[in-house]
């Protein structure tokens, strides 16, 4: 064992008490406590001491984390992946000292900064400048440090002109850019990051990922990184751990862990997408189901055939000109194609309530293999996500009998079959 371990968790566990009659509510009210006491007292009066032996208030233990063991060495960038509620956030909270473990221990060597949210503590009444200092201090930066990096932070966020405007007048994009920018300039020895890259528009996200990459690759920085975005995890992390139901079920090279995770996820939720957690949504509409291929065939279609799919969605209120689309990813999450109504020049008019959208991609020429699908709903120009459950369905393309057999369409040689024409000319 090398001496370069900076974080070590030993038999770490975190327990929450879940009360049955309080329905998972975390705090209680005095009124509840008093009525409970009074009720119990009354029961005691009626039944003598028998009642005290009964169960007054049922409380159940819930282990958010259990028997977690791992070591992280200096300079490693480790991705932690798992479904919502698997315990990733609890783990990060324990590591960043926000909450205390219930059992086991963690030893941490070095200065830790945790970034569980962008813009923690931002106050709408304060100006951009004031919020930079406030947020920086909350994240553990010293004032001198913030002053030194101030210009850099402002430049990165692209908010120079609005420094003295209260943040409440910022657009949501500006708000998020400023918040991320402060966080990105932290320089701890150990950085703990929770799903903060999914902010801003696509261009800014790209910039954030670049910045995170620079932070991660810089000297001896250890980074723990939670994300739902598998391509970002693969891009940034050298190692990954998969958490399921509070336990680390697999760890190792990022690529194989990501693949395990993605196939896990799909099996668990084929039926309904209502509860699909990994999504960008404004709440205006929700994709409830994605049907792929013919009913009998499940999610399989034959190579070269028409690919039919059906999106079920519910709109909360009338929505003018939404656009619908479907993105196809490979098993590592990289998008391969994106088809949508805007490309086809369609305007769908006013939409409300439960709707069904049918789509077809004629003669899908993807090589045989597994793919993931993300259906989406956007505004009329497809520039703003309304609902985007990421990689929530699987597509299996099976080889067609005939000339394009299995052997000739090896997915390691490509993803698309492109029709091509050839002509041989012999020169003399």
């Amino acid at each position, binding site marked *: 064992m090398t001496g*370069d371990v900076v974080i070590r968790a030993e038999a770490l566990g975190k327990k929450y008490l879940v009360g049955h009659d309080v329905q998972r509510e975390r705090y209680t009210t005095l009124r509840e406590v008093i009525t409970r006491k009074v009720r119990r007292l009354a029961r005691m009066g009626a039944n003598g001491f028998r009642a005290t032996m009964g169960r007054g208030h049922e409380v159940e233990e819930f282990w958010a984390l259990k028997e977690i063991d791992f070591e992280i060495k200096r300079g490693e960038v480790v991705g932690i992946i798992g479904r919502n509620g698997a315990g990733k956030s609890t783990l990060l909270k324990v590591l960043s000292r926000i909450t*205390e473990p219930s059992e086991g221990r963690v030893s941490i060597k070095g200065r830790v900064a*945790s970034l569980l949210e962008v813009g923690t503590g931002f106050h709408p009444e304060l100006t951009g400048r004031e919020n930079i200092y*406030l947020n920086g201090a909350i994240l553990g930066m010293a004032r001198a440090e913030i002053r030194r990096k101030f210009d850099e932070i402002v430049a990165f966020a692209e908010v120079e002109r609005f420094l003295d405007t209260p943040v409440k007048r910022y657009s949501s994009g500006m708000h998020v850019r400023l918040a991320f920018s402060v966080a990105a300039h932290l320089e701890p020895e150990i950085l703990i990051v929770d799903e903060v890259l999914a902010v801003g528009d696509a261009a800014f996200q790209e910039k954030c990922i670049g910045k995170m990459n620079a932070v991660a690759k810089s000297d001896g920085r250890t980074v723990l990184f939670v994300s739902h975005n598998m391509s970002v995890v693969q891009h940034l992390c050298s190692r990954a751990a998969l958490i399921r139901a509070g336990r680390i079920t697999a760890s190792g090279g990022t690529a194989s862990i990501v693949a395990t995770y993605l196939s896990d996820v799909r099996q668990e939720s084929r039926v309904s997408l209502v509860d699909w957690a990994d999504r960008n949504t404004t709440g205006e509409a929700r994709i409830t189901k994605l049907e792929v291929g013919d009913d009998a065939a499940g999610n399989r279609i034959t190579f070269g055939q028409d690919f039919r799919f059906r999106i079920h969605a519910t709109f909360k209120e009338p929505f003018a000109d939404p656009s619908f689309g479907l993105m196809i990813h490979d098993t590592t999450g990289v998008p391969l194609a994106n088809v949508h109504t805007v490309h086809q020049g369609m305007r769908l008019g006013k939409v409300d309530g439960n709707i069904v959208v049918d789509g077809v991609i004629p003669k899908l020429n993807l090589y045989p293999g597994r793919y993931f699908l993300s259906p989406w709903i956007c505004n009329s120009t497809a520039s703003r996500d309304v609902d985007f459950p990421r990689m929530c369905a699987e597509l299996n393309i099976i080889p067609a009998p005939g000339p394009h057999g299995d052997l000739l369409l090896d997915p390691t040689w490509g993803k698309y079959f492109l029709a091509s024409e050839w002509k041989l000319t012999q020169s003399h």
Partner: protein
Amino acid sequence: MINRLKQASPAVVDGPLALPDKPNGIHEHERVLVLEAGRAERHYWRDLWTYRELFAILAWRDLAVRYKQTAMGVAWALIRPILSMLVFTVLFNRVAKLPSVGHAPYSVMVFAGMLPWFLFSTILADASISLVNNSNLISKVYFPRLIVPSATILVALADFAITFALLILMMAWYRFFPDWRLIFMPFFLVLAILASLGPALYITALNVKYRDFRYIIPFILQFGLYVSPVGFSSTVVPQKWRLLYSLNPVVGVIDGFRWCLLRGESQFYWPGFFLSIAAVVVWLWLGIWYFRKTERTFADLL
């Protein structure tokens, strides 16, 4: 002073102390932070010191927001004491015919008592909701939680300064000025803060656990206003009850303020004063003890 935050990283425990069983791989000479169930924070108070900058900035934020939002921030700090002073003067002096202390005008005496009372009640009211209001911080970032309720003291002090300026104006109007005893005011001011902090911390922690506790706080404050010698002088309390009355920590504080602001016209009742100080100390200890006991679970409750 700020740079030290970087060097002395917060809450870092020295290696050999923290890891008596020397697990492999972790160098003993390096600082290692150990997180374990029920582990008392060894360096809690040092931690608090390293986070003093956060304390300052949170206090500054509350202050900036308070006086930025509207002119009402300042107006409120002016209107509240003036109205209360008028009501008390009319009620207790004109209607109930209670005496002032020595030659001091009744309204000045009321005002001198209101000064620490409003400090007390503002700290209690603001601190008690501070953790719930800052729950987004508590659940996302680590720092000693004691900072949040303590930071409300500064806002209360700003209001105090405004009320104090009013008192000076009033003294000028009555041509009744304090004498040398005024130099003791900082001492009583500190006492007033400590007297507020104890109950405030206790209630703050309770308020996290029982979210409806905040509905009781205005009632406590209303009740406290009438059982404390704000609208009247504590000399009107019958002698045999006086010692018992001093169990209220605010009594000693208000008497002290009156003594140093009203040229000693208000006699000092020493046994009562010491009892009040003892009450302050007990409350402070109780408040900090309960706060620290529950502090570790705050993030789980909010």
